[in-house]
């Protein structure tokens, strides 16, 4: 194992985050605060509570998941797409590093960044609403699992993308709608019958539901299913990455 290489890439990725601190930390904090103002105050004045939880507190896990998903994907996809785009990928490909090491370094870097971000949003949220975390271990487990899974997913997009447009395509057209429709801002019990069933096909629902359970002990679907679905998605991503690296797909001609 070329641990020095893993560390070098990881350090470089983290340095990038701190160099672009405005973009990577400050802007998600600002947008989260805006969600609180808009959703929490405006809608919260009409819906006072869901499942016995105040609306402001209810949306916190969903908001964190929203940022976690989008940031994990954009961090990881950009991290591997950028060297491909400028051509500096030659160095990575000519270095004595295995694909596994590349993955660990890039996905590790992207996941670390989004976990830090998730915790910052959590801290920001605590300023607006009183929070309880009933299952801190599971809260962290969901945080890490989701960050890693979606960083892997982002890495795949970054390798697949041939243009900046393609890089934005999946997050914009698939992930954002799924997160908004995944029960971040409401309980699925509030939806009419047919839409409740449709929502059950949305993988993000399981993430948000499981994550919310770790906070308040209440969830739309059972915690076992939430965890199971997250792990399934993680393994799908691992399988795709394994295939990419076996074939050199879009990396080595």
């Amino acid at each position: 194992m070329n641990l020095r290489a893993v560390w070098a890439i990881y350090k470089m990725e983290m340095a990038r985050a701190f160099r672009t601190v405005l973009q990577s930390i400050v802007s998600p904090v600002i947008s989260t605060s805006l969600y609180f103002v808009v959703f929490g105050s405006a809608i919260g004045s009409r819906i006072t509570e869901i499942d016995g939880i105040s609306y402001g507190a209810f949306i916190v896990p969903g908001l964190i998941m929203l940022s976690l998903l989008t940031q994990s994907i954009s961090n990881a996809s950009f991290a591997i797409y950028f060297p491909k785009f400028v051509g500096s990928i030659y160095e990575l490909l000519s270095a004595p590093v295995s694909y596994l090491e590349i993955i660990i370094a890039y996905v590790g870097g992207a996941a670390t960044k989004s976990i830090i971000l998730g915790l910052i949003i959590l801290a920001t949220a605590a300023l607006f609403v009183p929070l309880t975390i009933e299952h801190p271990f599971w809260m962290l487990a969901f945080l890490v699992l989701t960050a890693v899974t979606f960083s892997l997913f982002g890495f795949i997009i970054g390798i697949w993308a041939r243009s900046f447009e393609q890089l934005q395509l999946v997050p914009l057209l698939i992930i954002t709608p799924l997160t908004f429709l995944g029960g971040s801002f409401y309980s699925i019990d509030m939806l009419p019958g047919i839409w409740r069933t449709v929502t059950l096909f949305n993988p993000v629902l399981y993430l948000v539901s499981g994550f919310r359970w770790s906070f308040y002990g209440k969830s739309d679907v059972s915690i076992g299913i939430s965890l199971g679905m997250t792990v399934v998605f993680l393994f799908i991503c691992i399988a795709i990455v394994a295939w990419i690296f076996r074939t050199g797909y879009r990396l080595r001609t």
Partner: protein
Amino acid sequence: MPSIISISGVTKTYATGFKALKEINLDIERGEIFALLGPNGAGKTTLISIVCGIVNRSSGTVTVDGNDISRDYRTARSLIGLVPQELTIDAFESVWATVNYSRGLFGKPADHAFVEKVLRDLSLWDKKDAKAITLSGGMKRRLMIAKALSHEPRVLFLDEPTAGVDVELRQDMWAMVRRLREDGVTIILTTHYIEEAEAMADRVGVINRGEIVLVEDKAELMRTLGRKRLLLALRSPLASIPATFSRYALELSPDGSQLTYTYDNQSERPGVASLLRDLETAGIQFRDIDTQNSSLEEIFVKLVRRDA
């Protein structure tokens, strides 16, 4: 000692069906400077990319210091430094950060003193905190070299190192290449500047349309190629070359109006002066005089055209 790089039967066919390399067999000797010449699109970069692990070959084997580039890719790659043709650098990193990153990427422990020496040797030390994006083209080129040297490679690939580079940097680069060679580093450079190969290389290989058409010791090549012809247009035609001139390699044109003397321009005594003296003594007068040079460029063009 076995060669440091051994390429045997390497082919590359791209997905489009384009055959970039057809059966390449090439051995690079330890510690030599090898110049790979070829026109654009001949396969120079593809060949280098295969050895460095950037492009997968279609068939054949490559070893670097005895290590197979697929089976023992870690050892093989850690021996190689690559300076690609294009200036491809993460624009937002500082010089210092990016060179240290390269060293780590190749599995070497951090060594700030060594990195400092590399940067100083390349006149980059003043710029160590500058971001790559703020550097001039020449400085970027130096930075690419610093990155390639950061992990103390035993083999250095320079892909078109002096394309679009000013005279000063070119001279610096040549000096650096010679220094590296003194330290035992093997250097493989691709170029389409023939003078560069003439000035630098120990051996020269010519690649054209995916095939190696010539590999020759440069001195040997220059000996066979480095011949000059002295053309003498005579005032009055000769019937034959007088016997007294038998020690000169002279040829008389069919009409007897022109004498051609072929000599080795590398020689201490090419015999031009004595020939001219002897001609005067013999009363053979000429009205014009001309010389023709054969050069690496000439043979190169001939080799490359042959298949066209």
